């Protein structure tokens, strides 16, 4: 039994008058996980949820990578028979859906769940049980997609599942329903995590941390959370309407009964384009954090960077039609979306100039995280330039549905998000595990990834201009695409090797890496104040923030607040703009109910692709579990 469990536990014991060791021990006991498997399943600690989220998303990255490898094996030579056309359709659809919905968005939110409470100086994320529910829903959605794929009912209609291909007439069986309901799982998870992030950033910042002085990573995750809130309902409405068309005979997307196939595209892309920025903006937050630390100075143009993030988030909602230029929309409307598509390059470009200025005016220390940021600059800028190209309607029409587009969005997404993500993993791995990742393997990892990526994807630009279409499982000998395809496949193997090395480095470093200590990089933001890995309560005392990089501003002694309970989970709620302390609010205790509610929701979701009545009884089932979740278990809960 922990010593703290045997200590006298007065209900209102505060953090004053305790020596450092006793304070730490009591707080760790109060905020720690209960023992056993039920304790493990019941945790609401943002760090544990965040770690599970990150690990699960990386598993999905590896699985999606295997599908990518099979695509490249199939296309490495003409008329290959590695996979047939039906399986190929399922592979590219599952690859895209997996990478977008089960890897890219969740992994960014996972870093947010783990890091944001630490970076704003608090002890847990807002609504910790909602975070647990979010994770279980994400996991269930991922298992649902992958089990379906293994059972040969994986979706085969592309990651955007256009009607009429996915509709009742052509989308036979349950394959499109698997896609549509996987969307529901993952969007519920994402939107729950987005609400948590917004409330944590708005109300749980350490005293004194003004909105304008928040770390840029926190700003990026705040903008991303708002984008999720306003973008993801669109794809949920689209996928729900699709299920209704398929299950109960509605006609939303049936032109012969007054519906519209284009309506599906509008709904999907009203989500789908912001989705790109939902993935990219967290990447920019990671870049800002890494550049700041390794340039040894605050990011140049902090306020300009915040404005750029917000502007990018807003402009991202005005671009969706550029995915639909080939549908014959009115030219004037299409031109507006061309202008918007080019305009969004301005805030992104501004951020790049700010980072470069930071590096030029700082004293850069080259480590693996920064190498990946250099890779980001090169690849993302290239992707941005082809983005400006396809924003032009004549070019877009020429390369629409060709490998040029495949090259473009992989440059943007892998360059703009995955390179920063890998850099961020090297950067925050010591915080999460307490150990450093190997620099030597990291350098190999970077060069393999950088070379492999460019060899894999640059030839696709040329293939697209030569007319090679996307989503076609093979090509003939005489079309002249063999050499470039083979080159691309060799690059894909090198890229796959880089990821294998990355995972190996993580696995080995978690066991034998050098001990990190609280702040191995000498960084300036609050997560580096906590132990590595952080204790269950994050901080022994809640800091008071006077600067955007508090650990650089307060090198001698850190200002703190006192008077917070140590025997019950209590967090400090502060005002929206200038973070004045307002309330000592209770933070939820561990609970098994989020898992039970997620199981009930999973049953309801899966059953509802077979019977509409599942919505009725499934809704009631979920309602019962929510009552169990929210009903107070002790009188004490009412008072806190």
């Amino acid at each position: 039994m922990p010593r703290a469990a045997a200590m006298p536990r007065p209900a209102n014991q505060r953090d004053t008058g305790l020596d450092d060791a006793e304070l730490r021990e009591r707080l760790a006991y109060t905020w720690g996980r209960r023992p056993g498997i039920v304790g493990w399943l019941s945790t609401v600690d943002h760090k544990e949820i965040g770690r599970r989220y990150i690990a699960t998303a990386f598993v999905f990255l590896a699985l999606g990578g295997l599908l990518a490898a099979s695509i490249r094996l199939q296309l490495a030579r003409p008329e290959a028979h590695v996979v047939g056309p039906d399986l190929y359709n399922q592979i590219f659809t599952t690859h895209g859906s997996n990478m977008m919905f089960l890897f890219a968005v969740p992994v960014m939110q996972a870093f947010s769940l783990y890091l944001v409470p630490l970076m704003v100086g608090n002890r847990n994320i807002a609504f910790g049980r909602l975070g647990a529910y979010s994770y279980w829903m994400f996991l269930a959605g991922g298992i649902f997609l992958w089990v379906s794929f293994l059972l040969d009912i994986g979706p085969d209609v592309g990651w955007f599942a256009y009607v009429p291909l996915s509709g009742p007439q052509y989308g036979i069986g349950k394959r499109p329903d698997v896609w549509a309901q996987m969307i529901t799982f993952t969007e519920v998870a994402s939107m729950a995590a987005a609400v948590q992030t917004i409330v944590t950033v708005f109300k749980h910042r350490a005293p004194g941390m003004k909105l304008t002085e928040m770390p840029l990573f926190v700003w990026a995750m705040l903008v991303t959370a708002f984008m999720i809130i306003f973008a993801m309902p669109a794809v949920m409405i689209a996928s729900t309407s699709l299920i209704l068309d398929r299950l109960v005979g509605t006609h939303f997307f049936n032109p012969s009964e007054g519906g519209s196939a284009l309506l599906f595209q509008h709904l999907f892309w009203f989500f789908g384009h912001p989705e790109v920025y939902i993935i990219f903006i967290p990447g920019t937050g990671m870049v800002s954090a890494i550049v700041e630390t390794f340039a040894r100075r605050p990011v140049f143009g902090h306020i300009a960077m915040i404005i750029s993030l917000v502007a990018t988030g807003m402009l991202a909602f005005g671009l969706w039609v550029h995915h639909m230029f080939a549908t014959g929309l009115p030219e004037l409307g299409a031109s507006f979306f061309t202008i918007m598509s080019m305009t969004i390059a301005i805030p992104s470009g501004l951020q790049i100039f700010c980072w470069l200025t930071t590096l030029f005016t700082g004293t850069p220390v080259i480590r693996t995280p920064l190498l990946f940021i250099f890779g980001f600059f090169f690849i993302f800028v290239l992707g941005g330039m082809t983005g400006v190209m396809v924003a032009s309607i004549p070019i877009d029409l020429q390369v629409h549905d060709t490998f040029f587009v495949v090259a473009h969005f992989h440059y943007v997404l892998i360059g703009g998000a995955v390179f920063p993500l890998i850099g961020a993993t090297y950067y925050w791995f010591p915080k999460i595990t307490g150990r450093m990742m190997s620099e030597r393997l990291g350098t190999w990892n970077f060069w393999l990834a950088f070379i492999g990526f460019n060899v894999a994807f640059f030839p696709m630009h040329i293939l697209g201009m030569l007319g090679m279409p996307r989503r076609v499982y093979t090509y003939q000998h005489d079309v002249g695409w063999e050499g470039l395809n083979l080159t691309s496949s060799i690059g894909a193997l090198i890229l796959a090797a880089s990821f294998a090395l990355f995972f190996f480095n993580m696995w080995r470093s978690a066991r034998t890496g050098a001990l990190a200590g609280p702040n191995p990089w000498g960084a300036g933001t609050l997560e580096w104040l906590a132990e590595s890995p952080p204790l269950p309560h994050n901080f022994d005392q809640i800091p008071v923030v006077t600067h955007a990089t508090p650990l650089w501003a307060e090198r001698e002694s850190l200002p703190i607040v006192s008077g917070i309970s140590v025997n019950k989970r209590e967090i400090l709620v502060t005002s929206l703009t200038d973070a004045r302390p307002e309330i000592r609010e209770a933070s939820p205790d561990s609970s098994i109910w989020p898992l039970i509610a997620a199981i009930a929701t999973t049953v309801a979701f899966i059953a509802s692709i077979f019977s509409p009545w599942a919505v009725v009884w499934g809704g009631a089932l979920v309602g019962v579990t929510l009552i169990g979740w929210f009903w107070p278990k002790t009188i004490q809960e009412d008072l806190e």
Partner: protein
Amino acid sequence: MKTRVVANVSSLPTYGFGTSASTWWGTLGFCAIEGTGFVLAIGMYLFLAFNNPHWPLGFAPPMHWPGTALTVLLLASLIPNVMVDRAAHQENLPRVRWLLVLMTAIGFVAIAIRFVEFYMLIPRWDSNAYGSIIWLLLGLHATHLITDVGDSVVLTALMFTKHGRAKRFADVSDNAFYWYFVVGAWLPIYYLVYWFPIL
């Protein structure tokens, strides 16, 4: 790292109302998500209406009386809703209890009227796109009515137990806040379903 205490927060309250509480912001976040859903569903309706040469498609607009009755009831419910919110701020338990009972009863009547609306709709959801979209709009709003009434039932029961004190008054206030959203979301849908096709 050395530390220095610059403030003591032990005198702060342990719960609060409105913008000072986390739950209020969480409720607002979910209202934003669901509100976006409503805006998009309304956008779907308008998209279909303006992309078809005739609207409504093949059917007369539905008779407005059930919808009008619901609108009057929901608007009238704002008065007890304001009252329950105020009583919660005053932590007046007896008043909160009976007003919650009243609001729950109003919620059940609203759901009953919604079922009458569905029953009286002539186009079915599978008649054509017009039928589909008005069933979607009414269905989407019905889920919010049911959710809020379910929440009210549980909260009412809670306030009649030993838990009916302190922080639970803030929960009552947040529940009242959500009801404003449910009423506000209904008004544009009422206009679209019943009046837009004939005006």
